């Protein structure tokens, strides 16, 4: 996994990662150009107009409101309008606004808590079993109702997210306690998990590998230790893994009556 990282951006492992990288690179090149040009101009002014004996300051006429100083502004404005309309809005819409339909994609629910990522797969039937906060228990951290028929084949785990290569996975992101943030640097994907909300997040991994999940929103004393791993596998391998997990699923556990 460590070879995924460097002093720059981590390797890119999702379909939209390259769009985000493009923006990052473009903006940083532009920033560099702007800064260097301004810097040269600034240095020139400082040297050229330093105080010298017998040379008085030359007072310019007041240009009022619309002076030549607005030219850089117009350039910046045009650049920004282009960035907004040609880059930011289209890319943002694709990643965050247009979530894929649940019927058409592989699905998984991520339930964050202090300080772990619970993973809930619907299993072969494609249906998530009912979850209830009343059923939450040490042995059942997401409160899955094993009496629910849809829950029979569900797979529950923690801190390990398996995803099929080249398929869109829809992640239903939620939190049990405080706000966390699901962050996979290699996917360039980040989304807060807010208690009380279930937020749809999607990703299409395009590179087999082993990546890191971290929490990007302060969530308590062990925030920095709240991490997990993503395994991107070929679809057959992924299906095999899922089947093996489903076979191991525990017997329906009754909820403790009081706690």
């Amino acid at each position, binding site marked *: *996994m460590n070879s995924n*990282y460097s*002093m720059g*951006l*981590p390797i890119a492992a999702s379909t939209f990662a390259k769009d*985000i990288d493009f923006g*990052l690179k473009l*903006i940083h090149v532009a*920033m560099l150009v702007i*800064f260097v040009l*301004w810097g040269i101009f600034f240095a020139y*002014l*400082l040297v050229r*107009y*330093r105080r*010298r004996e017998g*040379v*008085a*300051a030359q*007072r*310019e006429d*007041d240009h009022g*409101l619309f*002076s030549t*100083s*607005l030219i*850089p*502004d117009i350039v*910046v*404005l045009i650049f*920004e*309008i282009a*960035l*907004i309309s040609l*880059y*930011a809005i289209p890319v*943002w819409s694709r990643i*965050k606004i247009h979530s894929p339909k649940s019927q058409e994609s592989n699905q998984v629910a991520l339930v964050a808590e202090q300080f772990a990522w619970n993973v809930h797969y619907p299993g072969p039937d494609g249906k998530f079993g009912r979850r209830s*906060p009343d059923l939450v228990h*040490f042995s059942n951290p997401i409160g899955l109702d094993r009496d629910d028929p849809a829950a029979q084949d569900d797979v529950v785990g923690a801190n390990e997210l398996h995803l099929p290569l080249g398929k869109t996975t829809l992640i239903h992101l939620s939190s*049990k*306690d*405080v*706000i966390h*943030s699901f*962050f996979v*640097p290699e996917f360039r994907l*980040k989304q807060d998990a807010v*208690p*009380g*909300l279930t937020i749809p997040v999607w990703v299409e991994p395009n590179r087999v590998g082993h990546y890191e999940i*971290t929490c*990007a929103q*302060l*969530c308590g*004393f*062990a*925030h*920095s*230790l709240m991490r997990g791993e993503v395994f991107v596998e070929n679809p057959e391998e992924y299906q095999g893994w899922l089947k093996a997990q489903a076979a191991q699923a525990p017997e329906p556990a009754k909820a403790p009556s009081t706690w």
Partner: protein
Amino acid sequence: MVTHDAAHDQHAQAPSGWLRAYVFSVDHKVIGLQYLMTSMLFLLAGFGLMLLMRWQLAFPGQPIPIIGKLLSPSLAPNGVMTGEFYNALGAMHGTIMVFLGIVPLAVGAFGNYVLPLQIGAPDMAFPRLNMMSYWLYLPGGLLMLSSFILPGGAAQSGWTSYPPLSIINPGQTVWLLAMVIIITSSLLGAINFLVTTLNMRARGMSLWRMPVFVWAQLVTSVLLLLAFPPLEAAAVLQFMDRVAGTSFYIPSDLVVLGLRHRASGGGQPLLWQHLFWFLAHPEVYVLVLPPMGIVAEIMAANTRKPLHGYKTIVLGMISVGVMSFVVWAHHMFISGMSPILSNFFLVTTMIISVPSVAILTCLIYSLRGGSIRFTTPMLFALAFLPMFGIGGLTGLPLGLTATDIYLHDTYYVIGHFHYVVVTGSIIGLMAGVYHWFPKWFGRKMDDRLGRIHFWGTLLSMNGVFFPMFIMGMAGVSRRLWDPTAQAHNLTTQHLNVVSTASAYLLLLFQAPFIYNFFHSIFKGQKSEENPWQATTLEWACPSPPPHGNFEKPPCVYREPYDYSPRGCERDYIPQNVEAA
């Protein structure tokens, strides 16, 4: 309220008695200096907390040298700080720096001392209210600091205090109480500045003859006045959630560490974020507008020519102020807020950069044709331009929704806003200290020490904050007690060492400043009324000004920066001089 001339008579008599003169004084100059000393101490305290954190970031798990032994074992067993303590230091660093350091220094100290002088007023409009602002600020600040030794400890949910974490974490109640007191203090100050600026100007001081610094304070006051009440209300609601069992911010069905949370539920965590950032974005401009005003003053005086585009700068400040109320949710692009709503805040965020660029452009153009004196305050003012520029530029990929997905909550953000508030605001405020020191104390600060301070500070500040951009690009998150716990942080961990070493260097380079400051108060070279040959009114009264400021009410005859007028022997004409 008092009218201008009546105020003059009333204040002609200096107060008698040590307590009335120095402690519970109603003189804006004394209050300004009280704010100056207190806020600089808070800045130092906030910096000290960060120096502890920087050790942990560079050498996680290793005992803090010397200080580690002095800390209570519950905070740092064997000298290694706990995650709780790290979070407490982080939350308090942010809170102290913003609300107890920079704002009181920029507004309470510079605003209080300089603004009435620059508009030719004998004092603030409400001197007693002014005294009350300070006497709310100090106890509020002390209460905030004291939370470290109170039973629950200090707040540890970040300076942003997002619920539900802030509701279930210890220490937050005192934070909220202290915030309510501090906010009240700022609100009283804002009303006072507003009324003073609008009603107490000297004869002839029309709005378009006000120095840029006065404009900056005016816009700042409006921002404080409009933005703080929602935060104060929000803080009271959070307080209720903690002590009265309300659930304004707590949703139903919370399960914390395996236990059902007892709150009734039905609340909204995101509500807090909207209310918080509705204040906290304008707050950013509260942190930068006054230093910008200071930089403008110093540049005019040291280029010996009028500012380029005085009106553009002022209108730029006003539009930045107005726009700052409609960009708040750019801090919430990935909070779970509607992603469609994000598009609106994306557009407003890009629009607000237009007046900011205009202001910066005008300041740089002001150098053209000048006769630049590289005095110590001018060095700081000049450094403000490119450094603040980096802060502004790096806001671009954060304001663009698409790239913010990756950069949000990383060290890139920390780098960005510290370039704005440290190499921007603090550098600007330092410039102001050197510039107005002769007015405050009648003596000058030493130039050689000033230059050492300048170069050392500039260099080490960049050493602290520049590596953060690289770390952010590599995906390192902020607020990490142990960065090495995450594999993707390891490739840039050595930059944490660079940053920490630079932070200690930065501390070292404040020594010449502190020595220079106190030494010069007593032993500095005596300064005349107007040592910089400047045009604005504060230089037309004695240094330091007596009680009541001006011997007789000044009259204003010209624009603020009449430098190098044509056909005039002197290269400046003060605002209160009628004919060349």
